[in-house]
């Protein structure tokens, strides 16, 4: 049976894992390679490394961090942040990533999705979408808006429409972050996740707001998510992928238990 994936996300700045609330107040949460290996050992199904400084400061993805993290990692490894061209993506793949996540650069030039997919396959292209509900709209969920610059600037497109275009251009997965929920530990935006998951045929990874086991169970059932991202819940020993999955199994969610 195909299981629901629990993906550990490492937000990385200057080669260190950091975590903040709604992308501000960042605090140090350790070494990326060590953290990635620990999450994989404890049963995380995938690792995502997002270089959160890359877009802001125009920096390239931290290839050296990718290299050291990838060496002993034998689960799927996605890298995002600052990938602006197919050449940037190629360097990240050469450093050992299995997938790249593209966000603002794909919005600026959607053909980037086609270009990476053509060379490396659709399974290697994750399109990350930062979303906020549109409280002024008739349907705040279906008309949720795409944001860039850490959730500060709307680009004037709806999330559902952009997800569909990404799929049509050859994206393999959508990584959907609710900027309203991110870092709050108050739960995923299940309605928004379901709206996007129903609009596309490719897997949707839900992100933003994980705080309890029930939040994960909800986003898999109500939110129709294929996978869910967790960062802060795993840091500082709050919980582990293993503990989370054991509780999800008890709640009837199909997940892979680590050996």
């Amino acid at each position, binding site marked *: 049976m195909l*299981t629901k994936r629990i993906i550990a996300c490492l937000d990385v700045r200057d080669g260190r894992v950091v975590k903040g609330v709604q992308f501000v107040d960042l605090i140090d949460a350790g070494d990326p390679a060590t953290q990635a290996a620990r999450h994989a050992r404890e049963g995380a199904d995938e690792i995502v490394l997002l270089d959160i400084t890359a877009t802001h400061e125009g920096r390239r993805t931290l290839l050296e961090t990718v290299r050291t993290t*990838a060496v002993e990692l034998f689960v799927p490894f996605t890298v995002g942040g600052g990938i602006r061209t197919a050449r940037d993506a190629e360097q990240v793949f050469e450093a050992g990533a299995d997938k790249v996540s593209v966000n603002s650069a794909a919005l600026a030039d959607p053909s980037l999705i086609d270009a990476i997919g053509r060379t490396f396959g659709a399974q290697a292209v994750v399109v990350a979408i930062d979303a906020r509900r549109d409280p002024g709209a008739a349907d705040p969920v279906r008309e949720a808006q795409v944001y860039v610059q850490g959730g500060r600037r709307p680009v004037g497109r709806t999330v559902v429409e952009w997800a569909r275009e990404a799929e049509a251009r050859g994206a393999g997965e959508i990584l959907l972050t609710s900027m309203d929920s991110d870092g709050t530990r108050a739960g995923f935006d299940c309605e928004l996740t379901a709206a996007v998951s129903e609009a596309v045929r490719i897997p949707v990874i839900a992100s933003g707001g994980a705080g309890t086991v029930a939040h994960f169970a909800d986003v898999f059932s109500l939110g129709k998510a*294929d996978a869910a991202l967790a960062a802060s819940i795993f840091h500082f020993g709050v919980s582990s992928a293993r503990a989370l999955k054991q509780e999800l199994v008890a709640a009837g969610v199909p997940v892979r238990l*680590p050996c």
Partner: protein
Amino acid sequence: MRVTVIDYKAGNLASVLKALRHLGAEVEVTDADLGPLARAQRIVLPGVGHFAATKRLDVNGLTTCVRSAIARGVPFLGICVGMQWLYAGSSEAPEQAGLGHFPQLCSRFPECEQKVPHVGWNSLAAREGSKLLNGVGSGEFVYFTHSYKAPVTGDTAAEAFYIEPFAAAVERDNVMGVQFHPEKSGETGLKILRNFLEVEPC
């Protein structure tokens, strides 16, 4: 032990090389050069992406070389598209013939409510006596990412289920294939690759 890995520019080779080296294999990569295949002790054909990419194998004469290596009894492992290539072909690229070692065709998952591609960790039901899956318990999980699959036949070494049963692994004597990515399947995947490295030539 030495492993010859064929680079035919289909997706990312790095993960497969990394996993084989982690297991202590001496890895040799070849693309257009047929010499390494002629003296290969073990061959791995990786691959993610489109079946049409296997055209490159024909153009370079690699197909003929692989066929004779297989006839010599050299253990061969195809991964993902590399497994599908062992069959007669795939509806993903009908104009492109596979090796035809297994006579069936690969086809797309049928359209239904469930999503295609099949992405994520799914469980294996391994058949008794498989060398490749020796020690892999029923229900162990491996990582898949694909939209096309091979049918279940007498050569199927492990089945998986998504929408319908399909061949997660195939094995006949020295010729083996896995639809999933052992290099991305944690300890279970490494165990399968280790089994391949320990298979005796026929």
